[in-house]
């Protein structure tokens, strides 16, 4: 992964697990730092992991363009489908559309079974080429 995770992600324990079809799969281990109600992963921590996975996937895609692109988040919509339990959580983004100005990225988060996602997110980001 050419892009390094920001201080927030590192402090929370978000890390690169592996690359899958060119997209980085990020993960976070369960700890008190990411716990919401007793026994469950906090929805905000889940969302934070998904945002990082979305940006990582977009960075991987934009790397091929050969120019420095700056990202500015516009919005995110998160659908929580299952409660996250006390185990490692993974997230992977897929770039649906990356044009000159706007990118749309879908992100899935899962735990033990990738076929049973615990949450889905859709992110929109503004792109600008650094002068």
């Amino acid at each position: 992964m050419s892009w390094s995770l920001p201080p927030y992600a590192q402090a929370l324990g978000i890390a690169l697990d592996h690359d899958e079809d060119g997209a980085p799969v990020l993960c976070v281990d369960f700890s008190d730092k990411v716990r919401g109600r007793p026994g469950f992963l906090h929805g905000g921590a889940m969302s934070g992991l998904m945002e990082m996975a979305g940006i990582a996937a977009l960075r991987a895609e934009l790397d091929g363009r050969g120019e420095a692109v700056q990202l500015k988040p516009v919005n995110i919509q998160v659908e929580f489908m299952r409660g996250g339990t006390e185990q490692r959580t993974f997230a992977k983004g897929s770039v649906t559309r990356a044009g000159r100005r706007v990118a749309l990225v879908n992100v899935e988060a899962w735990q033990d079974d990738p076929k049973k996602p615990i949450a889905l997110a859709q992110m929109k980001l503004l792109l600008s080429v650094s002068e």
Partner: protein
Amino acid sequence: MSDPNPPFVFDPARAAKIMTRHGHGGWLGLDYHAHGQGWVELALPWREELVGNAETGVLASGPIISLMDNATSMSVWTRSTNFVPHATLDLRVDYMRAATPGKTVIGRGECYKITRKIAFIRGIAYDEDPDDPVAHVTGTFMATHGTYF
């Protein structure tokens, strides 16, 4: 004579102090700020560990989502006046501008409609002026064990 069994009324000031002591809210350093009928404000103090861009010192968006998830969650119980276990169904966050580095962000959550199973929420995050918010959120919660009323 006082009622030996006074009806339980959810107190966000007291609950926020307990809920922000441990777990993700505790790690973020969330704190109670204010509340009124159907709304709650929590504070997210700036700190270096929560930064999303090391060069600018701007807070990451993840802590703002967590702040708004917690503030809107508590606003539901403030409206229903009782504590009912619930789960966030969805949350949409619009990022209107970067939070000012070094400033505490206040998350104001409001429950604007409650049904037996679903609570509808909205809110803003701001650092100085509520009329110049950092983010705007909308979303829904679902009562997971029982109903809100």
